[in-house]
């Protein structure tokens, strides 16, 4: 009774805020495209036609759209792997490494238990993938919790180590008879099911579910409340009897587990095989998405969608317009720049 009367007047404001936020984001992305248009002009391409290409190939056809969603899947996970630890003030730059280790563990499952049926094998792979990512994140989490090293440094420095381990495993044990840079193809039971004859796989659903769970968890649960307290003021949380060290380790490992799941979903849902260096900075991409989204689940969906449009569109631009792929990184950089510069750019006008 008390509650509703207190909250009710705030609700319309909240809706208004969300609307303003969405409009603002769209405006910012427009700005990024404008800036990038200048680059295209300078390199002698027609920006309007290039953009038309990007959008018709990605959003204009069912196939293009499905490809965007496919590209989005790993980013949902890796962004969440950043957003969750960020709630307790941990900066996880190690999504890339955690993803690789997760993929390696899942691959181990796929190769070892290949005779099992899918309903058993896939959960095993998921658990293994998460365990791998969590293990990789445990190292920085533990070192942070005993106050030894900053997690930003350790997660980052562990990133280049992980692909080396994958390389060692593939070259040493797992490579297929035909090809030394990848494992044999997974059996059908080790593949995540795909939908509608496209490459969209179950990972998308799992990603959305995880994001929803994340939102519910932070908003309603006891542990979400304690995590917010830690993120707000870790010293006070400690004095208030919240087990800070435990949270730092567990949350970091959970973040790692989610990144590991990204690796699992890539090898099982997308490639069907473990390739050397398959990630192409999906971990870093997730970091960018999470920061642009302010760590909010809905924002993560929106931002990973935008980034996916740019990446898939960029791939096509390379073919149709002869724009080098690296130029697409410029567009991504512009987007990141505009979004992160938002507070100082728009504060004066809007408020």
């Amino acid at each position, binding site marked *: 009774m008390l509650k509703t009367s*207190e909250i009710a007047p705030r609700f319309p404001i909240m809706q208004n805020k969300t609307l303003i936020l969405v409009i603002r984001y769209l405006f910012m992305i427009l700005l990024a495209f404008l800036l990038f248009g200048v680059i295209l002009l300078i390199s002698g391409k027609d920006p309007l036609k290039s953009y038309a290409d990007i959008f018709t190939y990605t959003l204009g056809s069912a196939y293009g759209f499905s490809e965007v969603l496919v590209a989005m899947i790993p980013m949902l996970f890796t962004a969440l792997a950043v957003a969750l630890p960020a709630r307790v003030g941990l900066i996880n730059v190690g999504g890339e490494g955690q993803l690789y280790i997760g993929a390696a563990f899942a691959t181990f499952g796929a190769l070892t238990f290949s005779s099992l049926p899918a309903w058993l094998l896939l959960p095993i792979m998921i658990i293994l993938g998460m365990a791998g990512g969590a293990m990789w994140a445990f190292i920085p989490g533990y070192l942070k919790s005993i106050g030894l090293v900053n997690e930003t440094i350790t997660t980052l420095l562990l990133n280049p180590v992980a692909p080396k381990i994958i390389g060692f495993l593939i070259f040493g044990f797992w490579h297929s008879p035909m090809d030394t840079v990848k494992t044999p193809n997974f059996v059908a039971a080790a593949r995540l099911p795909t939908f509608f004859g496209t490459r969209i796989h179950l990972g998308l659903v799992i990603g959305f579910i995880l994001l929803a769970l994340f939102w519910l968890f932070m908003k309603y649960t*006891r*542990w979400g*409340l304690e995590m*917010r307290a830690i993120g707000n003021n870790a010293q006070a949380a400690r*004095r*208030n*009897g919240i087990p800070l060290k435990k949270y730092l380790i567990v949350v970091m490992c959970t973040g790692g587990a989610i990144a590991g799941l990204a690796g699992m979903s890539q090898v099982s849902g997308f490639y069907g095989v473990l390739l050397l260096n398959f990630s192409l900075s999906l971990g870093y991409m997730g970091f960018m998405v999470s920061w642009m989204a302010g760590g909010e689940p809905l924002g993560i969906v929106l931002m990973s969608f935008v980034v996916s449009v740019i990446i898939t569109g960029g791939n096509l631009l390379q073919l149709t317009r002869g724009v080098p792929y690296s130029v697409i990184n410029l567009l991504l950089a512009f987007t990141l720049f505009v979004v992160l510069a938002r507070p100082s750019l728009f504060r004066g006008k809007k408020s």
Partner: protein
Amino acid sequence: MLKPHSTSNSYLNAVTMRGITKAFSGVLANDNIDLDIYASEVHALLGENGAGKSTLMKILYGFYRLDSGQIFADEQPVMILSPHDALAIKIGMVFQDFSLIPALSVMENLALFLPKLPAVLDVKGINNHIREVSERYGLDVNPEALVSQLSIGELQKVEILKLLLADARLLILDEPTRVLAPHEVQALFKVIDSLKKDGYAIVLITHKLKEVLECADRITVLRNGKVAGTLLRSDATEEGLISLMFEKKLGTPTVTHKKVSPEMVSPLLVFRDASTHAEGLEISLTAIDLRVNPGEIVGVAGVSGNGQKELGELAMGLIRCSQGKKFIFGKDFTEKSVQEVRMSGVAFIPENPLTMSIAPFMTVLQNMAITRTKKYAKRGGLSMDWQAVRGDIDRSTQKLGFSFPLYIPARSLSGGNLQRMVVARELIDEPRLIIASYLTRGLDVQSAIAARQALVQARDNGAGVLLISEDLEELFALSDWLVVLYAGKIVGTFRPAETNVYEIGHLMTGSEVEHAEN
């Protein structure tokens, strides 16, 4: 290059504030306030916590922007948008929390604040200038000393010097005596007096009546963001001011001593020869022997920075004994974590609520729940029983006579309300042992009495209290035992009735320490 303040000819004669209004997220902190400040005058700004004193002065210092109203300096309308603007019209402010850089020397700190800092420092010139000004007003500090080595009283002198060197003519002091020992307060009043004689205007923000009556020329009382009255010192009486400060007459709640005979009861908290190793800026505790029995308040006196913070944290398990033992409720808690200490029924009111006790961006309601999320958990923790939290808050605040809003971020509470929130939270579960550091810091008279009464009530119900405080009056009034902490050691244990303020004060400052002001 350096312009000595004495030659500056443009004195500030009067600052006038008219119709000053300022709201924070809908709450009116200042409501149409008029205030006049004249040169050669000490103007006290008196009021309860959250009455709007600090807000009003922070507006004058350009720290906050006013919503409406006007400020005139010598009858010229002025726009003060930043502290820089304020200094340009010779208004300066000393905040409650000092803003000096510890790693630099006094001289360097002061030089940084000079209006025209030359590219190459004339160290000698600045030093001489500092000495000249500081001798004139009795603000003696060694310009070459590092700020990190100064006592709190000295820090305050440096803050005042900083403003004088920056040529401020109106000095705003925000609760300057809060952190000072009694003799330091007297020294400060002397400084204020000599400044006044030289034509400075001084605004003293405070809620201590005695100080106001001792050194103010004019007194403005604020209540709920409005001016409740402005009087000359000669017209002011203690009762008059109190009735202006509080709408209703203050009943004088008495703090009673009900003795519980402590024979043969098992102590709640025992330190046996407990020592710690200091890390960073901490103080090492050495061979602490202390016991808190049920139904006892053990007061810990001392000048802050002598191990009080560490003693509280040691009791809570935030730092560990390097030697010796700690027992809580008769069990060995030497190696137990802060969670286990809290779970066993120990409440903790740390010295600084903002940095040590609350999550600033979470609402007050959420903050009230974070110490015992397990208790309020529903469905195994999947959701929280906010109804129960509110119920507990209602009960606790009613008992204490506090009230504060629940649905705003804790950050937007005033200092006094924050402390009320923490006190109310910590006393919810009727703890058996309460560790309270600077319980009444920042609280106004009424709330301080309520908080003290809460402790006494808990004591009478058989709880033990370790009360760490700098307020000797409070300690003498409440304590069953009084220990003095100096340089990390307990240098004296007394029954309050068997000692006096002078003996304690002597022990607090250490016999070999000489204070120049004395």
